[in-house]
């Protein structure tokens, strides 16, 4: 009789592989559930008046892109649709190629001009020290932008923002770990009374409940929240309908993968107790 210890785990790999590939190929979709903290994230951006300045920090790399990139894309669309200006920064060195690609793709769709409606300041090394410096003095943190390598004072958006963090109406971080949302909260959140939103991986989400809603106004935790946010934004943003559909397909895959894992836990425990009984 099969036991847990002698069961060939390649069958589990095969089952998971077949499940994921089949559901991906079937393109069946599942809408995401309504989530309070996603609605709070959406409502916070909706409440911003036009021409507000948002600092959007990319604190992730390709390993977390499956969860965070859809949130990042939807957030840029949401902000640009509402004519909110964006200062794009990164504390992870592998983030800028992603962010650059997304801005290159999205900004022309809304007729946004570089330097006026958005600016890319790029990667700053130093982890939480970098965040503290951005909070203390943006001009000390960055002497020039990362796209044209020109001084910050040549950009209209930076002149209207000024040097201190008080000019930033909202900070949004797409955070995959350290440094990320927890460091932004510690270095900038309390000190400058900043309004903060975060998009995080599902693994990191449990850390954020402790800060919501007093220090953290809303958050997107994992693929389910990303899909729910895409559903909300796509209602008024036709450009995101395709991305929403892709993510709804991912939710379908995720829910059946969860069921498979729960089934495996159940079978594993039954086999364990049967073996112990003998």
């Amino acid at each position: 009789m099969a036991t847990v210890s002698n069961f060939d785990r390649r069958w589990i790999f095969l089952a998971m592989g077949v499940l994921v590939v089949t559901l991906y190929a079937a393109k069946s979709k599942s809408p995401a559930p309504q989530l309070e903290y996603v609605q709070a994230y959406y409502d916070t951006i909706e409440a911003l008046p036009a021409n507000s300045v948002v600092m959007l920090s990319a604190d992730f790399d390709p390993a977390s892109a499956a969860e965070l990139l859809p949130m990042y894309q939807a957030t840029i669309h949401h902000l640009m649709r509402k004519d909110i200006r964006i200062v794009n920064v990164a504390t992870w060195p592998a983030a800028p190629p992603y962010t650059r690609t997304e801005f290159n793709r999205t900004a022309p769709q809304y007729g946004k001009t570089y330097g006026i409606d958005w600016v890319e300041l790029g990667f700053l090394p130093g982890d939480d020290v970098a965040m503290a410096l951005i909070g203390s003095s943006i001009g000390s943190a960055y002497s020039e932008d990362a796209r044209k390598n020109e001084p910050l004072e040549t950009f209209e958006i930076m002149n209207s923002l000024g040097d201190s963090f008080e000019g930033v109406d909202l900070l949004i971080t797409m955070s995959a770990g350290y440094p990320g949302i927890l460091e932004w909260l510690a270095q900038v959140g309390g000190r400058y009374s900043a309004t903060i939103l975060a998009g995080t991986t599902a693994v990191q989400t449990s850390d954020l409940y402790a800060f919501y809603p007093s220090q953290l106004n809303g958050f997107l935790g994992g693929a389910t929240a990303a899909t729910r946010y895409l559903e909300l934004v796509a209602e008024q943003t036709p450009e995101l309908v395709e991305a929403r559909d892709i993510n709804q397909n991912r939710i379908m895959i995720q829910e059946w993968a969860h069921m498979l894992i729960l089934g495996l836990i159940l079978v594993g425990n039954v086999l364990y107790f049967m073996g112990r009984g003998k």
Partner: protein
Amino acid sequence: MKREIPILLTVLCGLAITWAFFSQAEVSKAVNAELLSWAIIFFSVAFLLGISNLVRISLKQISSGHPDRIYKVVLLISLLGYLGVGIAEIHGLIDPVATGTTDSAGQVVFNDSAYQDWIYFRIYLPLQATMFSLLAFYIASAAFRAFRARSFEALLLLMAGAIVMLGQVPLGDTLTFDLASRWQDFLMKYINAAGQRAIIMGAAFGTLATGLRIVLGIERSYLSE
């Protein structure tokens, strides 16, 4: 003097940063920004030290015929190759304008690092995505082999995990008549948040105490004492 000067510097920098935290004076802000800028310069120099150390150890292992030497060769080629492409693009040795980003009128807006981006999107990105997606397979296998209700505490953990997994997806709610997401919400909002807050507060007081010990020169482990 080898001990006194580092301790003096630590005390002065610590006091200056603490002062800037509470003071609204322009001079304190300027000192704070200056010290943080220095810290970032040190951080950047640490990258160079890290690279030189990595190259030194890898070369040593290659020359000594270490069993992993082929991986060290790949590592060095990747490291130096990407660095070389980046430096060449920065100094215009490779023309990035030819692949620059254009606006709707066809005007070149940005001169992107086209070759670096090619390596990033065609090699680095698929490699990282592949590594991370393997987790799905290993988590499934690990759940089957290791997630056991061996004790009451383990049973509680297992049940909490199952509720969160069910509550995270719409199918979980369908199977439990909308109970899974409510239970998950309760677990995350109250049990998890309360525990997290206690841990965060404890860690914060610990950090504060350690920081004070360093600033006052009591804690000297950073001097290898």
